[in-house]
């Protein structure tokens, strides 16, 4: 089938998330950045929507609903439209739940899923990015070796959301040259978590660097155990997640700049009466559409049970580039005012830079 119309259910979910975002995030995003914290009750409210656990079987604490990458993409865009940090935090557990469901063994699922699917938000997280020049998620420098009856992990990770608060961290590392995922509990002595990171964006989301020194991981905590996991599929899903949140950040900047340009008067009329302004807005408008459609296209392939390697790759690449362009236009259209913290476009600019650079902040 070919259709771009949301189902009734998808519309309802989208409205629900939009309402939540409007009520608890939009107005507070600047404040949250200032305080470097997202209020726990806001996160709890988002958690209660159940998006991250919907496809977890009921006996493991979820709703047992069908996994819909498109619905997830819709939710992610809507959350990131409110605030990127909030979107990442509110869906953080899905970064470990989704790989577990899709690639974990039965015993891993029944051991871990119930822990992450509780009524109260439990900040488990994912560590994939690495703090060095030339980082590529498919060529990890964090390495695992088999030694003395367990795995040993060495290397370092950055931009790990909530690492200090998380009960469990899913770590991406290379084992014999291929990507693998390992579940590590917070009290593992081979893992050192840094002070709060200082980054240009994502500032209300606490992120940390982690270093692993001969960090021991039991064999049974390698995702998929001896057969390992489909790391490439995992990347497909996170790439689609990244392009969904890129769409959201871009749309926020686009809409804000558009409304501002309609009101702002210079030379005796709204600035948008000038083509050089109006054309930027037109471009932002269709690039947001294009980003969303590319996200949906890739998600749609997964939903149809097909491989989305090419589509996910292109969607992430496109979202990375276009988001930066759109958030740049957003600041430009507000002029000097756009450069100050009085308006959100400077935050979108800082957050938007992350879409092309960072991996694995979200997944479908």
């Amino acid at each position, binding site marked *: 089938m*070919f259709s771009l119309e*949301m189902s009734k259910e998808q519309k309802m979910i989208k409205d629900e998330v939009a309402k939540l975002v409007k009520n608890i995030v939009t107005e507070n995003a600047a404040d949250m950045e200032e305080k470097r914290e997202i209020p726990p009750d806001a996160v709890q409210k988002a958690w209660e929507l159940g998006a991250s656990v919907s496809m977890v079987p009921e006996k493991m604490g979820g709703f047992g609903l069908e996994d819909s990458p498109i619905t997830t993409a819709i939710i992610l865009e809507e959350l990131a439209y409110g605030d990127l940090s909030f979107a990442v935090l509110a869906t953080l557990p899905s970064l470990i739940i989704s790989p577990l469901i899709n690639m974990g063994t039965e015993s891993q699922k029944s051991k871990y899923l119930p822990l992450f699917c509780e009524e109260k938000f439990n900040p488990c997280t994912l560590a994939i990015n690495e703090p060095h020049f030339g980082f590529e998620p498919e060529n990890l420098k964090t390495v695992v070796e088999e030694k003395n009856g367990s795995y040993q992990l060495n290397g370092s990770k950055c931009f790990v959301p909530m690492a200090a608060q998380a009960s469990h961290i899913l770590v991406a590392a290379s084992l014999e040259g291929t990507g693998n995922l390992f579940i590590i509990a917070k009290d593992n002595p081979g893992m050192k978590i840094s002070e709060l990171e200082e980054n240009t964006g994502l500032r209300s989301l606490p992120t940390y660097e982690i270093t692993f020194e001969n960090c021991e991981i039991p064999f049974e905590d390698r995702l998929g155990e001896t057969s390992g996991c489909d790391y490439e599929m995992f990347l497909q899903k996170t790439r689609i997640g990244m392009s969904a949140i890129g769409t959201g950040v871009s749309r926020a900047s686009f809409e804000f700049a558009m409304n501002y340009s309609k009101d702002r008067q210079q030379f005796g009329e709204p600035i948008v009466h000038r083509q050089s302004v*109006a054309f930027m*807005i037109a471009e932002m408008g269709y690039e947001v559409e294009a980003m969303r*459609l590319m996200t949906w*296209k890739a998600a749609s*392939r997964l939903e149809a049970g097909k491989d989305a390697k090419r589509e996910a790759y292109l*969607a992430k690449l*496109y979202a990375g580039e276009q988001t930066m362009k759109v958030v740049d236009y957003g600041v430009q259209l507000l002029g000097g005012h756009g450069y100050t913290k009085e308006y959100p476009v400077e935050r979108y600019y800082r957050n938007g830079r992350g879409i092309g650079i960072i991996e694995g902040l979200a997944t479908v």
Partner: protein
Amino acid sequence: MISLELTEELKQSRTNMHNLARDLFRPIARKYDIEEHTYPKELDILRPPKPKKDSSEAEKKPVEVKEVKKDKKPAGPKYDNLIGVLSVEELCWGDLGLMLTFPGMGLGNAAISAVGTPEQKIKFGSRWAAMAITEPEAGSDSAAVQTTAVLDGDEWVINGEKIFVTSADRSEIVVVWANIEPSAGKAGIKSFIVEKGTPGFKLEHLEHKLGIRASDTGTFVLKDCRVPRENLLGSAEVKKKQSFAGVMQTFDNTRPTVAAMALGVARAAMEFTKEKIEESGMQLDYANSGYNMSSIHKEFYRMESNLEAMRLLIWQAASMADAGIRNSLQASMCKAKAGKAGTEIVQKCCEILGPLGYTYKNLAEKWMRDVKITDIFEGTGQIQHLIVARQLMKLSSKDLK
């Protein structure tokens, strides 16, 4: 429910068009680029069979039969516009110039089927119809047409000059825009069917062009050209508000088509470029993020993501039309994006191809010339951006000039 997977039926019709493009268009693409103004007789096999002259009943019958069938059909999704853009992409992958001179598929035919009366559709629908809007003083500002039509008895008397008419020579009839009440401004603009051979209707000359040379583009002069009263398309009433918008609405459906032309040509160029990249031993596998690849790889992925963006914006506009949703905004969005990105992609492919992108030995340089038209005709790139901005912000054409 959202799904961007094409049905088997859609894929099949795309494959059929692809084969046609590959077998009929590609082999003669260069020939008619060189032999500008020569009619590609190979395309004669595409001509719709002429209806028999003797039985006017035979013409009417199939129409009735069709309508009965329609009522019985279960109301499944309709994909006419989607099939249209998929087909155009394939045909233009074959050759844009030849696609534009597809016998019997003129822009005028789109206008007749959009606004013609049932009688007009029967009488003119199966004849190759060109569309003549543009004048020396009315290009992007199509509302400024100066050609006039005055009713004299049972005939309209048309005077004016029309330029850049696609299929000017090869068409059988021409849909001509003229003003029947210049004092009413653009509300007075109507379109008229003018048959070839009508006294006072003269094909003055054909253009020599940068690209799409397989398609003939010409100038008509109309001097006291008389056409029957019933050749006015639609209603003769001059409504101040509605009329011109109605005329322009025809283009909501054709803009995605022009965007699909850019898509087809750009894809052709990318496939050729990919072939050369891979022949040189580099692999494109959608796996590496950027640090371990050449600038050629990186550029290629970038182009491909833009190609995908164009395609999906086009599919969106077409699928809205199929669902009966007004798509003026999306139609202009996809043309704005496709005209620009399509042109840039083919230029870049030629750059990557180096000498192979400059020689007549293959088609890449020709695609670079051909694709440029998609950012010009049926509303230039700038005009599309204007329309998008006005629609997004609900601005009038006075606010945003």
